[in-house]
């Protein structure tokens, strides 16, 4: 058994001639949570889609557990997306079961597995509601239940809380940390939020501006599950500031010259943003 879950070697991709991802190599360790963070359009999502086999890179290689990836691997990799991808015509429990149907799971026990996953995210009483009857945060929780139910080794999350307000996102982040510390899954998590990255990740990979590649990787030493107290610790602030410094330069490169006054207060004072 190898200790590397995902191995990307010199993967690069262009969309319509525009370079989206410069040659990038990355190893994701088994059981870790790795955050990808970087300026808009830096290729974070592109890299995530390459890892999951949803996108074939123009060049480079992807392996999961030593096996080359050529397409989706629903048996080993599951996705959570930013938008709600629950089918609006199915109830929450039906949606979770649908994931199992797509995956090809046997009919027997499907409903029970779905109900279990729903219970794990605390949504049992909403099993028979339609997605439109749930809040954005609850919908993403349901999407998380669907992914847990698929029971893959690897979960790829593309800004799963990106469309949610900050409070909801903090609470979901805490819940995610608890859930994941129990399951020991390998997770790659794309986010725009520095606080979210530090709070959730074992390691944070910072992207450079487009065409993006990984500029540096920051280790977060704290044990899982992380508590709200971690957010207010000195360690958290140091790591968050370090990420901010790394990222700031890259964001400037995509956004143009600095407006001295505005930049000083734009993102400096937030904690879990």
């Amino acid at each position, binding site marked *: 058994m190898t200790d590397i879950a995902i191995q990307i070697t010199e993967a690069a991709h262009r969309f319509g001639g525009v370079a989206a991802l410069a040659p990038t190599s990355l190893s994701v360790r088994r059981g870790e949570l790795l955050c990808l963070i970087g300026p808009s359009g830096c290729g974070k999502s592109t890299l995530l889609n390459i890892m999951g086999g949803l996108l074939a890179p123009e060049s480079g290689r992807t392996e999961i557990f030593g096996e080359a990836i050529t397409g989706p691997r629903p048996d080993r990799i*599951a996705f959570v997306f930013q938008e709600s991808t629950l*089918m609006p015509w199915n109830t929450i429990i039906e949606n979770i079961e*649908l994931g199992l149907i*797509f995956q090809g799971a046997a009919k027997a026990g499907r409903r029970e597995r779905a109900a279990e996953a729903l219970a794990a995210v605390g949504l049992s009483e909403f099993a028979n509601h339609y997605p439109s009857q749930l809040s954005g945060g609850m919908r993403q929780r349901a999407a998380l239940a669907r992914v847990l139910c698929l029971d893959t080794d690897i979960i790829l999350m593309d800004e799963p809380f990106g469309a949610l307000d900050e409070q909801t996102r903090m609470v979901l982040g805490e819940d995610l940390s608890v859930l994941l510390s129990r399951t020991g899954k390998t997770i790659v998590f794309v986010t725009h939020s520095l606080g979210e990255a530090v709070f959730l990740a074992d390691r944070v990979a910072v992207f450079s501006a487009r065409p993006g590649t990984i500029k540096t990787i920051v280790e977060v030493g704290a044990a899982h599950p992380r508590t709200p107290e971690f957010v207010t610790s000195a360690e958290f602030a140091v790591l968050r500031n370090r990420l901010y410094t790394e990222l700031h330069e890259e964001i400037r490169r995509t956004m143009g010259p600095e407006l001295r006054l505005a930049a000083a207060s734009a993102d400096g004072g937030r904690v879990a943003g």
Partner: protein
Amino acid sequence: MRASRAIQLAFVAVLFALWWQATHGWHVSALLLPTPLAVLLRARVLISSGEVWTPLAATAIEVAGAFSLSAVIGLALGVFIARAGLRIRVAEPLLTALNAIPAILFFPLFTLVFGLGAGSKIALGATIGVFPIALNTISGLSNVERPLITAAISMGASRMALLRHVLLPAAAPSVLAGLRIGLTLSFLAVLGGETIASFDGLGHQIADAADNMEAATMYAYILVVVLVAAVLNQALARLDGFGQRR
């Protein structure tokens, strides 16, 4: 809800009042427009004597045949075309252009090929009904939200599973709207065909009565058609409601 229903009923009442006024007050010739009472009495006789059932059954069979054909062909065509972007780009403008040709022009041909019986009406109704069904199916299937498809594929959905669990349910409201338009058009086409050349059916009775200057009979059959249309409309509204349930 209540108010709108009351206004609709009032509209019908005003229509009947105008009709009554035209025949009684303005003395419109009974050959053109018999009194409401004469028409209602004639309709009652047609129904109680059972005379109405034969043409009604003929029309119903033709509409059912035309609609089933247009639904099966339209859905199959729509699903087939919508599976590939190239097919949509080629076929959708073609279908739209073909749909703009008045299909009634082919009715003489249909009577030559399928005869004066039910066949030519079914052919006409199906020809007219197939376009909105195919076009709405294509538009419904090609406007499915991309993330839903990506998510399903990432979970391992096969092409059939994708069609069954994502594409068709997502397209259902548009497909149902197409079926609704298709049924309405098939109904209109069948009746139109019957009034032009036929042996049987409600349209045939209407044309026949007009030829024989039996105005009361003609209006009585028109009243039957209106009733059938109302029932059909109710059924379709229910179908639409089903499509929007989510």
